[in-house]
């Protein structure tokens, strides 16, 4: 079949040429159309339910909402994880489905289950299934600045002008608006006036609801016409609302303004946004799952540019986070590495082949493979991202291997058999190496197959790498059997191509050294044995981690303050810290900080929690050489603000961590149990022990207990005399404290809620517990009574947060790990915890976060790599028909891995998932080199009888292809190893491992393999 393919290609050169051109065109088109992103879609199929339960404590929400829904959701098939976070007035339930589950099916399932329990939820619950986004969907953030506009005006502008416009951009799932004051028409009832007018709160509410309506009454037939009759009462302005008649008795008409203050107010605030120390308003664009990030961001920018002229004069859209910047930088880094790798490989080919034409023939496979890979990526639905393009960079060195072998054989054959027709010689040359080329490529493809079995985050990250490599290698193999023979026939000249002199010199030196090794092998064997042992020792000292941290360019500092802090106090502290940071760290261009919860509830932080987002100046303007040094400088400033917990993260890193574990941080230690106080105590103990373990930084315990609530217990005996029920009392108090929406006013496209609330700066505002006790209530029957007569007001304690996984409560301690590997850290921590912490019955610990992913990845790889090795063994056995020879080639693997481990140790890199992928890649290259060498020994078995001569001649003959494949692979990865831009961090360990491994495996291929083959053959033949 291979022969037929080669023959067809050589006889149908024009046709193949046309096919190649068409493929190139498709490739170019695919490249231009490929969705571009920083990362592959790493989010699982995830459905979130966000429900708001105004006024309910965390424990009440857990019991009456979270548990009810969780029980219902537990039956949904294909779910992997069900977790929830319940806080005051909000619950956030997340359901992760198995990979590959259709998101629309999943959402439908969740919606159906939610609908079936809706009726059993308490009154006043709002919300539902969250927008179809992923944790990485927050891709564009900006604040609205205008010194002439108040915070309320800016918020109104965002809510009703900018947000609706941006939601029309394709790919935008929602626009989360934060900060400022959401405008309301505020009705502040005057209890005394209501009592004198004999109007109850319920009546007032009912009148507003029932008056603010436009209703159809039917149709009136008048002669030949039909007239639609409508009753119209919609209120359209504050003045109309104030003039609303709430009671008419005789000549006395009570209007709303007579019994209540009617003015512009704002919704109760659950969060705020500050910029450089002052309050502002922010919008956060959430993209749909599977949308094209680049296109969405571009669309948002276009829409904002369109909106700009219509915004009030002086309005500035201050963009502080643009995912496109990260994407551009990361893609630029990886693209540069790709082009540099191609240039290096072409140069190496030219050097080794000593002929530009031959080098061009071989190099042709690079752009063609790349373009065809882009086309295949577009068909497979892969985006161009750090990982998929990284896969291509990794493959660059190996892409030319097949072509190198083919072209080298063509050149050799053409030189050796000058008399025969040229095309025939090329056909023969290609056919001769077709099988080893295919089997070699198959080995490489098999080697990368374990990556396809990775699950979780590591699977989502490295599957694109493996798929891209498989695509590229498969295409390069096809090209080596089709385009390369054609190009050889067209481009290689008539003149024989001589081996370059430097290669000759190299061959001579190699021959001498190899003969010396064969004669006196002990020294070399001893050196390799020592290196092998040393690499094993180095391995134990090499840190293990899950994934290198991608430098996203921006920094987020997460603050946690006293749990009972008020929003103004929290904002005041944030502002203080921001001013200090801006003053003392000039590398920070601007700071935008979010305190408390967002509007949608995707990230329901408490009022004591703040995410400080820092936009940095270009690194060239920094006083520091590294970002770590900059972070240390920021940490020093933060240390001067005691009483506040702080932790460092980055926008994507934060969301990925939260996606993995529901919390942020390299490592999360979850304490499972039932009693909140006990969990809190254990979590504090775990945190204290963690802090004592070297390498722990930013250790944080979520404050789950210590929530203080004012409990109003109704004296039913008294309250019922006035018709005051617990519900009525709760509603009344809500009007006094948080506000109660009773209706809304529609002004064009703007909807402004009408809210019963108390003017927070007025004399009737409740500003203390004593005020609450003394509050004079208007009863449903219009009479009055102070609250203390109707109810006891007292403090109660309860959980602040209830976090659950699969229905079990837990407390979490998070920690970042600095200066050491995460696995070593966890091992030490686990040992310390088992010594120092005694868990009560029913309580258990679980380690999560990146560590969990790392462990899972290791387990997966340890299962699959042996299977891949078995497959390789089978291929080798079928190629050589001998198990010892297959074993001989496989014996090269430890030496390849040895080099990789030494390289990791020397460069100070950790053994991470990318480094493991590098080790996997090494298996292929090491085996491939062995195949190249041993297959030649076998081929020349009949032509060269003497074993020593056969091995030395064969080795020298194979020196050039072995060095070419090794050096192209090695130098092809150099740009990645030395790349410094954002995005380079992830592929760097991989490149270092492969380069190190190739160095040692090439040496062992050139010396130990011939040596052991010699011993094996000599022993075999006596």
């Amino acid at each position, binding site marked *: 079949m291979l022969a037929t393919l080669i023959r067809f290609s050589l006889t149908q050169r024009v046709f193949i040429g046309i096919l190649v051109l068409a493929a190139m065109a498709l490739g170019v088109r695919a490249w231009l159309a490929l969705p571009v992103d920083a990362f592959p879609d790493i989010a699982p199929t995830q459905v979130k339910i966000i429900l708001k339960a105004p006024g309910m404590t965390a424990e009440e929400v857990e019991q009456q909402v979270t548990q009810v829904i969780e029980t219902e959701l537990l039956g949904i098939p294909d779910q992997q994880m069900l977790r929830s976070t319940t806080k005051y007035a909000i619950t956030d339930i997340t359901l992760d489905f198995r990979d590959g589950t259709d998101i629309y099916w999943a959402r439908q399932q969740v919606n159906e289950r939610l609908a079936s329990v809706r009726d059993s939820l308490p009154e006043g619950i709002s919300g539902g299934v969250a927008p179809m986004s992923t944790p990485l969907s927050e891709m564009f953030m900006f604040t609205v600045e205008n010194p002439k506009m108040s915070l309320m005006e800016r918020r109104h502008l965002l809510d009703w002008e900018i947000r609706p416009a941006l939601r029309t951009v394709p790919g935008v799932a929602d626009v989360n608006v934060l900060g400022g004051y959401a405008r309301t028409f505020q009705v502040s009832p005057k209890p005394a006036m209501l009592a004198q007018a004999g109007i109850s709160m319920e009546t007032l509410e009912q009148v507003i609801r029932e008056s603010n309506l436009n209703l159809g009454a039917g149709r009136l037939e008048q002669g030949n016409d039909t007239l639609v009759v409508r009753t119209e009462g919609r209120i359209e302005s504050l003045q109309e609302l104030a003039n609303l008649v709430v009671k008419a008795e005789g000549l006395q008409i009570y209007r709303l303004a007579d019994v209540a203050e009617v003015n512009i107010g704002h919704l109760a605030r659950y969060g705020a946004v500050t910029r450089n120390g002052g309050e502002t308003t922010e919008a956060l664009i959430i993209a749909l799952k599977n949308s094209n990030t680049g296109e969405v961001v571009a669309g948002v920018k276009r829409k904002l540019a369109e909106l700009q002229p219509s915004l009030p004069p002086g309005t500035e859209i201050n963009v502080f986070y643009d995912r496109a910047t990260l994407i551009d930088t990361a893609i630029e880094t990886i693209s540069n590495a790709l082009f540099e790798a191609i240039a290096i490989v072409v140069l190496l080919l030219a050097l080794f082949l000593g002929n530009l034409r031959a080098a061009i023939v071989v190099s042709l496979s690079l752009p063609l493979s790349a373009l065809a890979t882009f086309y295949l990526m577009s068909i497979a639905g892969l985006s161009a991202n750090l990982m998929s393009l990284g896969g291509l960079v990794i493959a660059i060195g190996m892409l030319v291997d097949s072509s190198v072998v083919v072209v080298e054989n063509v050149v050799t054959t053409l030189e050796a058999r000058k008399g025969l027709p040229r095309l025939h010689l090329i056909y023969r040359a290609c056919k001769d190496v077709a099988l080893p080329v295919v089997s070699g490529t198959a080995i490489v493809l098999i080697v990368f197959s374990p990556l396809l079995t990775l699950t979780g985050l590591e699977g989502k990250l490295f599957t694109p790498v493996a798929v891209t490599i498989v695509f590229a290698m498969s295409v390069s193999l096809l090209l080596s059997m089709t385009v390369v023979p054609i190009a050889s026939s067209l481009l290689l000249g008539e003149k024989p191509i001589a081996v370059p002199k430097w290669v000759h010199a190299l061959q001579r030196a190699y021959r001498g050294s190899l003969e010396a090794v064969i004669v006196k092998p002990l020294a070399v064997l001893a050196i390799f044995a020592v290196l092998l042992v040393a690499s094993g020792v180095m391995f134990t000292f090499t840190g293990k981690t899950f994934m290198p941290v991608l430098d996203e360019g921006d920094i987020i500092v997460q603050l946690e303050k006293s749990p009972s802090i008020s929003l103004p106090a929290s904002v005041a502290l944030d502002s203080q810290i921001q001013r200090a940071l801006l003053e003392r760290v000039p590398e920070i261009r601007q700071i935008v900080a979010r305190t408390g919860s967002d509007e949608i509830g995707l990230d329901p932080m408490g009022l004591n929690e703040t995410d400080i987002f820092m936009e940095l100046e270009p690194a060239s303007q920094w006083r520091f050489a590294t970002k770590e040094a900059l972070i240390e400088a920021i940490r020093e400033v933060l240390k001067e603000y005691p009483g506040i917990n702080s932790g460092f993260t980055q926008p994507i890193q934060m969301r990925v961590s939260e996606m993995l574990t529901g919390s942020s941080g390299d490592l999360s230690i979850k304490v499972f149990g039932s009693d909140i106080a006990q969990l809190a105590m254990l979590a504090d103990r775990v945190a204290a022990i963690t*802090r004592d373990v070297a390498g722990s930084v*930013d250790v944080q315990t979520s404050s789950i207990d210590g929530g203080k609530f004012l409990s109003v217990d109704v004296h039913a005996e008294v309250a019922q005399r006035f018709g005051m029920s617990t519900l009525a009392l709760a509603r009344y108090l809500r009007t006094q404290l948080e506000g109660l929406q009773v209706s809304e006013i529609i002004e064009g496209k703007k909807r402004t809620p009408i809210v019963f609330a108390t003017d927070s700066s007025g004399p009737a505002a409740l500003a203390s517990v004593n005020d609450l006790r*003394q509050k004079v209530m208007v009863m449903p029957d219009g009479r009055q009574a102070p609250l203390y007569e109707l109810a006891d007001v007292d403090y109660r304690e309860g959980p602040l947060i209830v976090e659950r996984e699969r229905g079990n409560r837990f407390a979490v301690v998070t920690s970042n790990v600095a200066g050491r590997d995460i696995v070593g850290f966890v091992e030490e921590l686990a040992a310390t915890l088992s010594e120092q912490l005694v868990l009560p019955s029913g309580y258990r610990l679980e380690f999560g976060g990146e560590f969990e992913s790392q462990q899972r990845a290791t387990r997966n790889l340890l299962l699959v790599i042996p299977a891949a090795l078995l497959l390789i063994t089978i291929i080798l056995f079928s190629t050589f028909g001998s198990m010892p020879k297959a074993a001989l080639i496989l014996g090269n693997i430890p030496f390849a891995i040895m080099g990789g481990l030494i390289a990791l140790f020397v460069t100070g890199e950790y053994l991470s998932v990318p480094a493991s992928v590098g080790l996997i890649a090494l298996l292929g290259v090491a085996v491939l080199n062995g195949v190249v060498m041993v297959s030649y020994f076998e081929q020349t078995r009949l032509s060269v009888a003497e074993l020593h001569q056969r091995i030395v001649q064969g080795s020298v003959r194979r020196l050039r292809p072995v060095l070419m494949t090794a050096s192209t692979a090695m130098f092809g990865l150099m740009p990645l190893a030395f790349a410094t831009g954002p995005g380079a961090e992830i592929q760097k360990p991989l490149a270092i491992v492969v380069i190190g491994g190739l160095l040692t495996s090439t040496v062992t291929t050139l010396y130990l393999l011939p040596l052991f083959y010699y011993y094996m053959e000599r022993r075999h033949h006596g």
Partner: protein
Amino acid sequence: MKKMVLGLLMSLSAVELATAQTVAVSALGSLELDFERPVAVAVYPGQPVAARVTFRNGEAFIVPSPGRVQQIEYLVEPGAAVTKGQPFAVLRGPEMHHFEMSFESNRALAASAEQRFRSNKPLYERKAISESQWREISENYYTSQLEYEHMRHFFELVVDGDNDPSALTLTAPLASIIDYEADSGEVEEGDSIALFIPRKAIRLETALPSAIGADVTALQAGDCVLDIERVSAMTDGFFIQAWTQPLPQDCSLMLGQPVLALPLVRTSSAYRVPKSAVFQIERESHVWVRRGDSLAAVAVTVLGAERDAYVVRSEVPLAGVDTLISSVSAVQGVLLGLGDE
């Protein structure tokens, strides 16, 4: 004596307990530490109560109708200030003439009865007439006098108007605020034609929650601060009726006006502190006060709130003591062990 010492010790230990939690200022890094000195106050604002501008029973002068009146034309509006002698209403109808005739008739009858009384008195003293005759004369005399005086008082308020025999023009009996029911129908004899409330009788009436009723010293309604003059000794449901002193001239509240009033509650050991100074530990409110090189948490009870300040009660004297008003929650965080990294 023993009790006194024990009490002193207990109060001292309470103070110590209240200030047991301290944080060294040196441990607070670069936190902005602003201080303010609380001011001692004698009252704090309670929750607003309903009040009404009114007068107490008996403080108003009532002009009753001498008979059935068909029409009254009021010359001033209810609530208007009138001077003594200022015409305020014209009573119209045929009955007015009858009133005048009746008045004249009563005057004549009274004069006649008086004359008869006077002439018969010496006879009675000499026992010239019988006891029963004298009783009849006396009764006749006193009855006619009473009827006449009754009419005379009314007619003292009548001035000459437009010479219309069917109209009587009434004048105000004193400088006051007039009140009448503008939409009343027929006025029968004895019905009130108008009320005249002296300015010094106009005050706020309110119902105070019984728990604080005795401690409220004044009511604040808008810019008017009015001392409580009387508090009822019995409750009406959950409330106690209370009246302030009369409204001063510069207090522009209208009679009958319902107002929302802030009760100013008497207290002791109370201080005004900025709202930003108060924080919570366990179930108690506290403030941080400077004690040398450290900040001590002092327990306080929040009594009431003003716009930017609380009135708090403290066992520990706070007047003039440096009290932290910024970064309070961060210092609280230090106490909770936050930021220990």
